[in-house]
């Protein structure tokens, strides 16, 4: 994964693409691959998906 500061260089002022986007910061990017946090999210996402599945069968 590219360095956080390198990603900021992709943003160009007044550009109608990159100037309007949100770039995840270092902590957010750490959380995305943090095994403990992601295991917790794994459980939560699965439960949410099962809820959606259960609401879809009639």
């Amino acid at each position, binding site marked *: *994964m*590219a360095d956080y500061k390198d*990603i900021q260089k*992709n*943003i160009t002022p007044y550009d109608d*693409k*990159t100037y*309007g*986007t*949100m*770039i*995840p910061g270092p902590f957010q990017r750490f*959380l*995305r*691959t943090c*095994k403990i946090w*992601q*295991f917790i*999210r*794994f459980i939560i*996402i*699965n439960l*949410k*998906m*099962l*809820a*959606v*599945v259960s*609401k*879809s*069968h*009639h």
Partner: protein
Amino acid sequence: MARIVVLGAGVSGHTAATFAKHWLGDKHEVVVVSPNSKWNWIPSNIWVGVGEMSPEDVVFELAPVYKKAGIDFKQAKAVSIHPEGKEGSDRPFVTVEYTDPNKKGETEEVEYDYLINATGPKLNFAATPGLGPDEGNSLSVCTYLHAAEANTHFQNAIERMKKGEKVKFLIGTGHGMCTCQGAAFEYIFNIEHELREAGVRDKAEIKWISNEQFLGDFGVAGLHIKWGGHIVSSKVLAESLFAERGVDWITGAHVKEVQKGKLQYELLDGTEGEETFDFAMLIPPFSGVGLKAYDKAGNDITDKVFMPNGFMKVDADYTPKPFEEWKASDWPKYYQNPDYANMFAVGIAFAPPHPISKPAKSVNGTPITPAPPRTGMPSGIIGKTVARTVCDVIEGKYSLEEVKEKGHHASMAEMGAACVASTGKSIWNGSAVALTVYPVVPDYDRFPGTGRDPEYTFGEIGLAGHWIKHILHYMFMWKAQLKPGWTLIPE
């Protein structure tokens, strides 16, 4: 003894056939007609396309599975439907032409009591001159063989980059009326991930081209999720990911022609442009497979049974109306043909009443609108629901005429979908966008503004999504092979 004939053995047809046989047992007959000898878990073709899985990992032979289940399997393609039978017989039938090497070219009339059309799409590469692997100008990941071919080109590109060459990748949709943006989305980020893993990311220019009006439309008019304490549109989520990974994009584009190493496109504002590429993977538009229909006298009634795009008419409201008048109730609930009550169409084979995304035309009048996706979870749910209804009719719980009162229903406007889009395959540093959307077709009356329930519509990026995607691969391969406990795995 009743006979159900299922045309097609993709997600929807396979689900319908296997559940129907499971529920009916040996008292009734289930026949599957499919031109392919193998079943393919299509979502994992993305990983075949970057060399992270082999074609053998994503397919299995259908014949042994159907033999074990007691399903009569005919490796053949359906050519025509005769819902009134023929002179001298009222029994409806389907004409099939064998693709099985042992019977290749032979035709047969397969009679049915109930027909479930699950033929899926025709990959309509011909809609754009020069598009597709056959023309040799662009690649595809729509089938496992296409994906394997794409991987060969991808590995060659990596070798070139390791030697110091710059390579330009162009990924997206190859026509203004395409669907399946999600597959292209997955592929572009797996390409990006693999290039980083190979240490050649700095040698690559990666660009997205799509018919979506905005990034993150995905053919479902985008969605809104809770993210960082805000309600955020999928446009923001998608643009964030593209900007983070240094991927440029073109949206609102209709690809007009693909030539060797370059393509021409038209944008919504009418401007035209050209993009060069070394490697292009562009999803084709879909159409019906070209089934014909005939009445008892042999007259062509294809227009009565199918819409002009080749998909079968079902219980949807096909009245043309502007976007502002679209209703959730336009969408079919029972997937029953209005003229022939014993005919159903599931998965991609049913004709949707209209797109889900807001229609748009360029100033030159060229339609540039994502077609509605009907793959994956909706396909499985619809297949199972229709199978349940047909089994209920066979078991005498209600008649075909009572299906719309008592049958099981699965409108895409009442159904959610879980979608996990891989953005890099690795157990420890991979990631995926895990999304759920409820309902798939937005209902602005029930959920003003966003059209969807904010409690059941969510999305996030992370390693957990990759784990889920990986587990889903093995879970659905297991389920489709009817291994122990397969009925417990939800669609």
